[in-house]
């Protein structure tokens, strides 16, 4: 059979199902700014209210603090409360709690008060402690214990009120306490050091005494070897001991000071020992020149070794020894001279006493002769032999002008040596005048007598210019008047002595002057005065007095007769005889 076209099925396939279209639907994002703003708003509300409340609470806190402080200021603690607080009991202060601002302020203010009071109390106690420390009544350990006890007590009490104030108080008081403690330690250390120094000083002095004793021997015997050894060897031993002991004090300055002191002491010991040896050696004292030479050659007996050592190493000490020796020699000579002068003064006084007794006895009297013998038996120099004859003639006329100027010289201090008086005896000065002048020279205080004499001289019309010599006729009326006035003065003084009255020279002078004035007020004196004033003073052109008289004499206004008439009128006016 022929092939027939046969169609096979399956030429068409089922179409594929494409994927479904998936249109995308996007959800737009929404920015929730409203809610954010709402949240932000709430936050702002919260912050604002927070700030506002903080501010209001701040104001309230300030007000509460102020109220608390004001309360404390208005209610100061009573003495009982303070005493209780001192002993750690703060309950009477009624402080309240620690939470409320008001209570906190009250506590803070109270803590200020208590802290101040405690600090004041602490200062007082510390000052007392310091004083005790300075007086040596307490030591560092005791001070430390007292400070700890006091600070612990106060700060514990204060911590119940305000811990911060307690800490501050502790810090402040610790600073003050440290000062006191440091002071106490310093004082204690100083005292200890001073004690050790005193002991050392005493030991040093003992050492120096022993050394001086050894030096005065000039040598030293070693107790171990019984050999003579030089002072320098011994000095080395002492020097070493002193250096070691001074170093133990722990002060280099002290070591230096005592080393220097030792060297000075050793030097002085040598000088003193040699000087003493020389002064006790009569031979050395007798021949000064030889001794000085011996010192320079080191030949000074048992001190020769010491001196030779000084010559080699310390020549200044040799000079000092020589100087000491010379001073001693001079002092001895001076003492001899002084004694001689004293003896001479005694003899002079004795001679004056004898002469006074001699003058009142008549010539040829046995007693007088006996006294004259005693006078002549006095050692040489008591009375100058050349003046003895003139002295024994007391009634021989003396020159009042010489006596007057001599007394003035004594008053003025220009005459201060008995020889100057002795030299005038027989040359215008008789024995009585000389003795009177000598007594005046030897008297302790001549000022009153000088005033009286000058006053009398003035009343007598004698010019008395200090330091100048008065040149007037010894036989003139002035001296006659002075003699009268002196006699009046003596009479007044004698009467006063009889009456038991004590008259000063001024009082005597006033009485003399009163008596003279009474004489001048006589009719004759007044007439003479009137004549002077109406006649002569007109011509002179000024007042005429005794002082202006020399000038009138030198002028050509008046001739000699007129001057003479004026003098007579002056005498009459002054009541002069």
């Amino acid at each position, binding site marked *: 059979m022929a092939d027939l*076209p046969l169609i096979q099925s399956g030429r*068409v396939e089922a*179409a594929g199902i494409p994927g479904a279209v*998936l*249109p995308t639907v996007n959800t*737009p994002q*929404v920015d929730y*700014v409203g809610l954010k703003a*709402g949240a932000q708003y709430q936050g702002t509300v919260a912050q604002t209210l927070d700030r*506002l409340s903080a501010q209001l609470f701040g104001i309230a806190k300030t007000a509460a603090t102020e109220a608390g402080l004001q309360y404390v200021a208005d209610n100061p603690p009573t003495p009982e409360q303070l005493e209780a607080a001192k002993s750690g009991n703060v309950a009477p202060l009624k402080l309240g709690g620690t939470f409320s601002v008001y209570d906190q302020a009250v506590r803070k203010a109270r803590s200020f008060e208590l802290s101040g009071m405690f600090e004041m109390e602490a200062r007082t106690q510390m000052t007392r402690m310091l004083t005790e420390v300075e007086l040596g009544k307490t030591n560092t350990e005791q001070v430390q214990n007292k400070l700890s006890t006091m600070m612990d007590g106060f700060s514990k009490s204060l911590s119940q009120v305000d811990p911060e104030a307690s800490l501050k108080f502790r810090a402040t008081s610790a600073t003050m306490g440290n000062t006191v403690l440091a002071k106490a330690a310093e004082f204690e250390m100083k005292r200890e050091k001073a004690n050790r120094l005193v002991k050392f000083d005493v030991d040093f002095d003992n050492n120096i005494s022993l050394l001086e004793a050894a030096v005065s021997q000039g040598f030293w015997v070693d107790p171990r070897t019984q050999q003579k050894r030089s002072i320098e060897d011994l000095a080395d031993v002492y020097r070493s001991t002193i250096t070691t002991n001074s170093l133990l004090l722990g002060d280099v300055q002290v070591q230096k000071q005592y080393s220097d002191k030792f060297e000075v002491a050793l030097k002085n010991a040598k000088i003193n020992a040699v000087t003493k040896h020389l002064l006790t050696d009569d031979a050395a004292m007798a021949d000064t020149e030889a001794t000085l030479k011996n010192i320079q050659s080191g030949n000074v007996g048992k001190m020769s070794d010491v001196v030779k050592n000084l010559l080699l190493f310390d020549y200044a000490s040799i000079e000092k020894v020589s100087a000491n020796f010379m001073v001693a020699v001079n002092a001895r000579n001076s003492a001899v001279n002084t004694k001689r002068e004293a003896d001479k003064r005694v003899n002079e006084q004795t001679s004056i006493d004898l002469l006074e007794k001699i003058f009142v006895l008549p010539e040829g009297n046995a007693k007088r002769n006996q006294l004259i013998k005693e006078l002549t038996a006095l050692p040489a120099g008591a009375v100058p032999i050349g003046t003895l004859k003139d002295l024994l003639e007391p009634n021989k006329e003396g020159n009042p002008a010489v006596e007057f100027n001599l007394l003035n010289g004594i008053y003025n201090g220009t005459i201060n040596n008995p020889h100057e008086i002795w030299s005038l005896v027989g040359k215008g000065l008789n024995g009585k005048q000389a003795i009177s002048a000598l007594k005046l020279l030897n008297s302790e205080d001549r000022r009153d007598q000088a005033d009286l004499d000058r006053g009398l001289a003035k009343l007598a019309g004698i010019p008395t210019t200090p330091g100048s010599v008065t040149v007037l006729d010894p036989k003139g009326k002035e001296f006659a008047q002075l003699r009268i006035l002196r006699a009046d003065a003596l009479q007044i003084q004698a009467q006063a002595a009889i009456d038991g009255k004590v008259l000063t020279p001024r009082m005597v002078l006033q009485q003399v002057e009163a008596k003279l004035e009474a004489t001048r007020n006589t009719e004759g004196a007044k007439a003479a005065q009137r004549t002077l004033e109406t006649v002569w003073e007109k011509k002179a052109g000024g007042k005429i007095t005794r002082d202006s008289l020399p000038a009138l004499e030198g002028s050509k206004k008046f001739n000699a007769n007129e001057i003479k008439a004026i003098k007579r009128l002056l005498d009459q006016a002054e009541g002069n005889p």
Partner: protein
Amino acid sequence: MADSTYTDFVDIAKTGFDIFQSSVNTAAPYLGLAAAITAAGAQKTAAIYQQGLYEVQAIDTLRFAQLRTDQDQKYASIQAGRKLLSAERQALNYTIQGNTLLRGLEQANAAVRARAAANGIVYNEGSAAGVQAANVKSVYRDVGMSNLNALTARILGFEDAGAMILASKEQADLTMSAAEAQANQLRLAGDFNVKSGGLLAGASLSKGVLDFASTVKNPFA
């Protein structure tokens, strides 16, 4: 003379400066209060301005969302139309394919009959008839498949187009809803801003009043 003039000048300057300093000290609390009041007003104004900005932003958001959804819906309609045309064309191609298969059936069976005839076989009996029937069965099975494919193309085209339209609608709804929500948020933010500004202004004013009260010296005292 020159020294005297200089001293006078220094004295006057010192006095002037003292007066100035004293005036500033006295006026400072009042100036501070005035500044606090002004600051409070400024804070309120700033908040209102901010609210205005938010309002403008909300309006713009809504307007732009509306524009975008309109455009999106237009594009979606176009795309859906195109999708429907494409599906119809595809269905038509499947129909053409079926017709081609039928034409091939006709040709094949014609050939069967011709050959049968040529071979002296009855063309509508026997195997010739059996081959033709088999060809019909086979071709119609393929035509049926082609018809199914055409139908499927149409259905899927409708589905895709419908999905596009639906999606665009949904997107528009979402966009507009979001825009409205955003606008509402902006307006809400503006409201809160105004409230916040008012609160801050009040706080500033309160602080200023408190500071003024604590620093001013009572002029009536």
